[in-house]
């Protein structure tokens, strides 16, 4: 990262004689950064940053969609967390709603136990793909593929797309 500065090598390479040197005797001194003051006083930090609660932030892009996790921030309470979350996470793009949740209120499974989510036995019976190869034999007694379910799903999908198209334009 950025040249990994804390990972320096040992030997130094030859410098080029035509490298510019940065010893110009003038310097741009912006009026608002108080550089002169900072140079003179150099106060030393008394309290470098907050030790506020961390809030996890969830954003809903549009009505009808799920909220999704976008990040987290430090805030003294939930109301300020919401005020800050708006500009920290929703200053670009769509957003209609935000949630903030104190991080200590989130209960999570342990990654070490993530094997509990693995499906070792045959669970095809709960997937649509587990019912492929239905034939109309049983109904009509002759070999013909039964595409009733696919037909229903296709119609539903067509409707969904059409309504999306109407809502969002082409």
């Amino acid at each position, binding site marked *: 990262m950025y040249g990994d500065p804390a990972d320096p090598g040992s030997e130094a390479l030859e410098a080029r004689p035509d490298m510019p040197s940065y010893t110009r005797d003038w310097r741009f001194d*912006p*009026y*608002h*950064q108080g550089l002169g003051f900072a140079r003179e006083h150099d106060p030393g930090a008394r309290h470098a*940053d*907050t030790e506020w609660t961390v809030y996890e932030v969830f954003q809903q892009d549009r009505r009808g969609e799920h909220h999704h996790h976008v990040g987290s*921030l*430090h*805030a*003294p*309470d939930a*109301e*300020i967390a919401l*005020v*800050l979350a*708006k*500009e*920290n996470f929703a*200053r670009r793009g769509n957003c209609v709603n935000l949630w903030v949740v104190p991080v200590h209120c989130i209960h999570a499974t342990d990654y070490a136990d993530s094997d509990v989510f693995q499906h070792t036995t045959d669970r095809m019976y709960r997937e649509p793909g587990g019912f492929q190869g239905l034939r109309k034999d049983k109904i009509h007694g002759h070999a013909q593929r039964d595409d009733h379910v696919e037909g229903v799903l296709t119609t539903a999908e067509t409707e969904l797309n059409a309504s999306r198209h109407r809502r969002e334009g082409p």
Partner: protein
Amino acid sequence: MANPATGAATVAPATDRTALDTPPPELLGALKRYLLALADDEMLLGHRDAEWTGLGPILEEDIAFSSMAQDELGHAKIWYGLRHELGEPSPDRQAFLRDAPDWLNARLLELDRGDYAASLVRQYLFDLAELLRLEALTGSAWKPLADAALKLRQEEKYHLLHGQAYLERLAKGADEARDLLQAALDRLWPYALAIWEPVEGEADLVAAGIVPASAALAPVWRAAVVTRFERAGLTVPLSHDAVTGGRRGEHGPELVTLLAAMQGLYRSDPEADW
């Protein structure tokens, strides 16, 4: 979110005329001055707010305040843009090529940014005024002005939420913070009162139903300010002495310094593309 500024009735310009698409020629000068005052206020506030960008007290707050700076500059651009449609130069040229005596901002907005307490208080005092004014302007007989006001009003809601949330917590949080806020309020108060100094010719615009009377908005604003600040435990000064003159082009040395920085590079070659 309810109207956080007032809760009271808004002041609509007195008009029973039909909407104007083009302003009457005899009012053009006054209208341009009024718009310039609006634009200059926002421009300078945006500029001052952005002096905190990268230097804020907390990372998260730095980001929020920078957004507000951008909002104010965006508003300024819209007001300058309306003037541009009335025959004035481009927004860039209005903002970056004009000398201090031609600026019509209230002096509140040109003052140095001060500490963060001063910036929060200035922002909040101004936002309360701006929301009131914008709400009234949505009833303007000149349609472009009413449309613009309607659009800009939205962003003010967030500004007030932000200001209110901090003000209430900080003023009640610790003596140190309350003292800083009170000091800022005391210092800024006479300047804030002058937000309502009318530009020359305002009365004619009011009569034509194009803008609300500043004198009518001022007490509504003052009541809202008193309610909000006193609820937070701060004392609003009783004084009615305003530091006026800004709307006539009379400014302090702060504006000269500010403009020298803001316009210097642009003016080094105004014909160049930057």
